[in-house]
């Protein structure tokens, strides 16, 4: 027999994914802004009887008439029109208790369908903080369906909710089809929502003070933007300043592993593969774990507190100027972590051209995979000193690279909106969620997940690319007096590319690193590390940190051109694949590749020749 299904539905940011995680033990991303979940996710829930039920988490929606691709998914699943999926037997409507009147509008629309419905009155703790005392029984009578108070993030009310699901399941089996209720119009529904909410509120004090006070400061017309800017600045300073001791320790650990392998193992093909390929290559990327963790700690806190939505509010003016809305801000901000979730997050944008523009510029947001590339070059070429007021020059350069990416994205969006994605600029309509104090355990889980993704990439994609490169670099063996890199297959391939990139100041090793870096940007770092390890004349040189090797071999203009290249170059297979999927074809990914490589080439060239002219 097919497993029975239940689906979580409700307004955006009601806590559906938090409830999904609590009920199934899954670890779906949760954050405090509307539109975190953009696709259906399934998990398994076990009833007290031992019967398993498939639980489906759906994107939030304000109604059954969808305006954006993510809401479309919700509508189709609820109505049983989603390809390859049966209509869920039970619908669990998740309501934000502190925003009852608004959430009851969609809830009534779902209840009208006549399917078995359970209401999870979520975030009752936040409602109490807001001075709202609710009567679930009154709500239950008014709606005619079971109402269970829950606090998903604190795992409260779950047993009662599961019991209600079990009861509704057996009822659904007894009378399939249900009893649709008379359909009423939106204004009628809204009036009913108002009356039901009033009837369920036992006592109410005026607006929550903290919420409006924080908005008063953070959304202040003149103070808000500098606060946002200062916060971003602190993040990039912290990425350098706080991570250095940890990164140095990791670097030393990798170095001693290489030294140990060299002294313990007999000289052999396998030893070289291990030291030059795996340890030098993959190790050179893994040492950036502390930076990644620090960056994500900031991003996760901003998402969980509700500040991210305020950042969208503050940035809307700028986005409007280039023909986008603040709605594009969150996908673009997610792209600072990785362009893949960023591009997926565009599903919450209703306007197709707005969405396409956002997808096309998302890869210019500096993703965490660029961090190893930037950090290794900055560490090797930018002096470690302050420029006054305790601001580190290295952090400043990193900040500047992020800013160049943002400006690039804005300019490209401006051009695209006047050419290929021409159309009326769409507006910005977005719910601003209430501020919440994040739970430490949720933050730590999120951080662990990001760290794990990074390490898994190092162990799979970066490992593979580096080992293949090492093999291509090691054969055929060089004649005495000849450089191994020049003699190898990879060296010969790079000769061809070098002709193309020589005019923008790139050397043979960079040309060599660019090809495997198509797999992922971090591979540029591991490839350089492997290339220089293979090329090292003796073991003392091989043991040098990558940064020291680079600073003795590259000129400053070359290093700066390399940084400029990576601001734009779309060197990430996964981004290209997800763009193809989200735009249904090869047209837009091809366009993206061409224009981004074009920009990368031009800007690296400008950077190189300007630096040379300035005598750097």
């Amino acid at each position, binding site marked *: 027999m097919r497993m029975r299904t239940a689906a979580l539905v409700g307004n955006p940011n009601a806590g559906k994914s938090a409830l999904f995680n609590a009920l199934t033990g899954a670890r779906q991303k949760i954050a405090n802004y509307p539109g975190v979940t953009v696709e259906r996710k399934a998990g398994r829930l076990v009833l007290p009887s031992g019967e398993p039920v498939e639980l489906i988490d759906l994107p939030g929606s304000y109604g059954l008439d969808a305006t954006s691709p993510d809401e479309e998914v919700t509508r189709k699943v609820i109505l049983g029109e989603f390809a390859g999926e049966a209509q869920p037997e039970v619908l669990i409507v998740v309501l934000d208790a502190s925003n009852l009147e608004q959430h009851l509008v969609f809830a009534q629309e779902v209840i009208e369908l006549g399917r078995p419905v359970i209401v999870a009155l979520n975030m009752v703790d936040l409602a109490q903080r807001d001075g709202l005392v609710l009567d679930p029984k009154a709500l239950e009578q008014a709606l005619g369906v079971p109402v269970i108070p829950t606090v998903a993030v604190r795992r409260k009310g779950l047993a009662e909710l599961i019991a209600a699901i079990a009861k509704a399941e057996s009822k659904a089996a007894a009378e399939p089809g249900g009893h649709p209720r008379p359909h009423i119009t939106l204004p009628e529904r809204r009036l009913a929502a108002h009356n039901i909410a009033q009837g369920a509120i036992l006592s109410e004090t005026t607006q929550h003070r903290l919420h409006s006070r924080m*908005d008063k400061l953070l*959304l202040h017309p003149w103070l808000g933007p500098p606060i946002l800017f200062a916060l971003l600045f602190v993040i990039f300073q912290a990425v350098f300043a706080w991570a250095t001791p940890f990164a140095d320790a990791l670097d030393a650990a990798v170095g001693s592993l290489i030294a140990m392998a060299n002294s313990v193992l007999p000289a052999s093909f396998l030893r070289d593969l291990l030291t030059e390929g795996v340890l030098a290559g993959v190790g050179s990327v893994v040492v950036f774990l502390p930076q990644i963790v620090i960056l994500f700690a900031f991003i996760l806190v901003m998402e969980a507190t509700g500040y991210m939505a305020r950042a969208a509010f503050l940035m809307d003016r700028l986005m409007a100027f280039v023909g986008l809305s603040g709605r594009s801000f969150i996908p673009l901000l997610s792209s600072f972590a990785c362009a893949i979730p960023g591009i997926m997050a565009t599903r919450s944008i*209703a306007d197709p051209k707005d969405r396409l523009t956002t997808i096309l510029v998302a890869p210019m947001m500096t993703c965490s995979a660029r961090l190893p590339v930037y950090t290794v070059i900055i560490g090797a070429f930018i002096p470690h000193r302050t420029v006054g007021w305790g601001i580190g020059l290295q952090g400043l350069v990193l900040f500047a690279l992020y800013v160049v990416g943002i400006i690039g994205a804005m300019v490209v969006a401006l051009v695209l909106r006047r050419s290929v994605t021409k159309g009326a600029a769409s507006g910005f*309509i977005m719910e601003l969620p209430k501020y919440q104090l994040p739970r430490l355990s949720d933050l730590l889980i999120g951080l662990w997940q990001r760290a794990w993704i990074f390490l898994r990439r190092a162990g799979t994609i970066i490992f593979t690319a580096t080992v293949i490169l090492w093999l291509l670099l090691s054969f055929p063996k060089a004649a005495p007096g000849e450089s191994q890199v020049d003699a190898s297959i990879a060296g010969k391939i790079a000769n061809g590319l070098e002709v193309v990139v020589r005019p923008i100041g790139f050397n043979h090793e960079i040309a060599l690193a660019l090809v495997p870096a198509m797999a992922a940007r971090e591979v540029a770092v591991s490839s350089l590390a492997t290339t220089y390890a293979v090329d090292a004349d003796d073991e003392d040189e091989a043991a040098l940190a990558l940064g020291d090797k680079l600073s003795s071999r590259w000129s400053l203009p070359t290093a700066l051109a390399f940084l400029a290249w990576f601001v734009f170059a779309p060197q990430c297979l996964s981004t290209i694949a997800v763009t193809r999927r989200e735009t249904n074809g090869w047209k837009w990914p091809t366009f993206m590749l061409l224009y981004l490589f074009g920009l990368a080439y031009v800007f690296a060239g400008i950077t190189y020749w300007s630096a040379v002219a300035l005598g750097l």
Partner: protein
Amino acid sequence: MTLEELPTGKRARITAVDWSLLAPEEGQRLRAMGLDEGARVAVAHRGVFAGRDPLSIMVGRMSVAIRRSHAQAMQVEAL
């Protein structure tokens, strides 16, 4: 008076909305969020710098960010 002209912090009721000034899906989204005739609203914050765009509107207990152009389409009466 339009919602855009309503002084910050003053409570009002939306009396009429000129939906023809808004793109259909934007109108639908505003209605879905409760910004429709009869809604009790207040302007909580006005956006950044001299443009004062977007606006943060209180609808019931919810804050919604909208553009000035949306607020200009909504007639309100102060309460």
